[in-house]
């Protein structure tokens, strides 16, 4: 171990961040090196000097004043809302309208794989989806076209572009949803798959996320993406019902309630009634009760 390396490690030692094995090496070096012994002594003296600076501990008064001011300000701020949810019928209409508008547009891009602006058209390397997911660095969705660009590391940097319905792009997105350790990329991939949930493979991947993703944001997003046509399938409703009963995150459970209330499966009402009286979260109880009430009103209206 060199003197420079040792000094850097001695600093970590003083802060309690040096691993035991490295510590022994550093000790041995200091034992034999006068210059590093001097360095350690100087660091200890510096510590003594710095200890004379009092810690800036906020007083109780200051903290209360800050809380009071913040509380007043929060009431004036528009609260955060989850992303706007569009009713399935309207979403389908918008999708068709968007598709037709795009089809009739004079600037319509040619069919097939179309790159983003400023990217020269050309070949897309053929690479297996698992490698793309493993090396994925960023995922961009073109807001105008819904097309996706996945930038990933192979030995160099490469990118794959195309519509999410493109089999190669879709496979890469599914691999990312299932295997990427980066929750942000998983969320982006889920977003890119919005509108693809009627596909069996996509639906299966989304259900896996709902059941087992460690990130509540991803579970929430997967429920959102499943909403719509896919929500009518019994397997989907059962998975969401399972999430409603087992998920630890109240936000996810509330989103599951909304999903099931709009899907109106026969198995939903008894579960919601139970949650309305028994759930640990007051907010979940409230939302369940509201969904139950809406369901009864809707039944009465139908008679």
């Amino acid at each position, binding site marked *: 171990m060199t003197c420079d390396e040792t*000094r*850097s490690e001695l*600093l*970590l030692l*003083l*802060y*309690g*961040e040096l691993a035991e094995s490295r510590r022994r090496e550093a000790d041995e070096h200091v034992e034999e090196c006068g210059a590093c012994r001097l360095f350690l002594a*100087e*660091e200890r*003296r*510096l*510590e*003594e*000097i*710095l*200890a*004379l*600076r*009092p*810690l*800036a*501990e*906020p007083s109780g008064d*200051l*903290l209360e*004043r*800050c*809380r009071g*001011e*913040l*509380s007043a*300000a*929060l*009431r004036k*701020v*528009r*609260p*955060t*809302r*989850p*992303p706007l949810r569009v009713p399935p019928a309207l979403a389908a209409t918008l999708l068709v309208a968007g598709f037709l508008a795009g089809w009739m547009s004079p600037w319509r891009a040619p069919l097939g794989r179309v790159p983003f602006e400023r990217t020269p058209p050309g070949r897309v390397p053929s690479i297996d989806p698992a490698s793309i997911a493993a090396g994925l660095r960023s995922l961009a969705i073109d807001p105008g076209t819904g097309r996706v660009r996945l930038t990933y590391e192979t030995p160099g940097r490469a990118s794959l572009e195309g519509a999410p319905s493109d089999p190669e792009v879709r496979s890469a997105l599914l691999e990312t949803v299932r295997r990427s350790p*980066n*929750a*942000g990329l998983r*969320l982006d991939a889920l977003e890119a798959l919005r509108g693809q949930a009627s596909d069996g493979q996509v639906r299966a991947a989304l259900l896996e996320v709902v059941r087992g993703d460690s*990130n*509540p*944001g991803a579970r929430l997003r997967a429920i959102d993406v499943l909403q719509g046509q896919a929500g009518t399938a019994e397997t989907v409703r059962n998975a969401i019902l399972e999430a409603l009963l087992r998920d*630890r*995150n*109240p*936000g*996810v459970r*509330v989103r599951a309630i909304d999903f099931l209330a709009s899907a109106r499966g026969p198995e939903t009402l008894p579960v919601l009634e139970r949650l309305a009286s028994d759930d*640990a*979260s007051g*907010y979940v109880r409230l939302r369940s009760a509201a969904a139950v009430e809406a369901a009864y009103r809707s039944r009465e209206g139908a008679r």
Partner: protein
Amino acid sequence: MPPPDDEALIGRAQLGDVASFEELVRRHDRSVLRLALSLLGSEEEARDVYQEAFLRAYRSLAGFRQESTFETWMFRIVTNLCLDRLRRQAGRAEVPAGTGAAAAEAAGAGVAGEMEDRLARVADDRPDHDPEKALLQREIRRQIEAAIAGLSSRERLVFELRHYQGLRLKTIGEILETSEETARNCLFRAHRQLRARLRDFRGAVRDAGRERAGPLRVEKR
């Protein structure tokens, strides 16, 4: 029933529940305020940063993906706000040509001056008040503040977060959106400069006496 964890509170707050957000604030605001106070040295500025940081978090909560803890996320917001202010302060200070202790002292004069006022009051209130010792302590503290203020904004942040707030270098890397290695190098540079600037006070420490246990905190998390 056990209190809800941060994750649950964030979930509710993301659905627009202000009370859940306020509970998150109560859990983490002391450390947020302590950091702002420590970096800026002014209660007024720390109050402003406190409010601005939590309002910013509230407004962007819908996009918070919980890839880091709420506290780390808050520290990231606060350090960015403090960095902006420190840079503005440094820009306002009339730094004489050249570098070294004099320039560093001038650059940190505003922060050090305000901290100095606060420290002076702390020293005077002590029951065993010894004017000579108090004077020496004040001088040493003034030099410590000037030396810390003379670090670059980034070095200062890393030093404050590690030395006085007790955060691990890995967490500091997350807060500053850089690697643990970079945070470690930054801390090393900060120490090298502080050692050089405070070299003259090595002997004076014993005379001044230590007021409290050193804040060189071993791991908080």
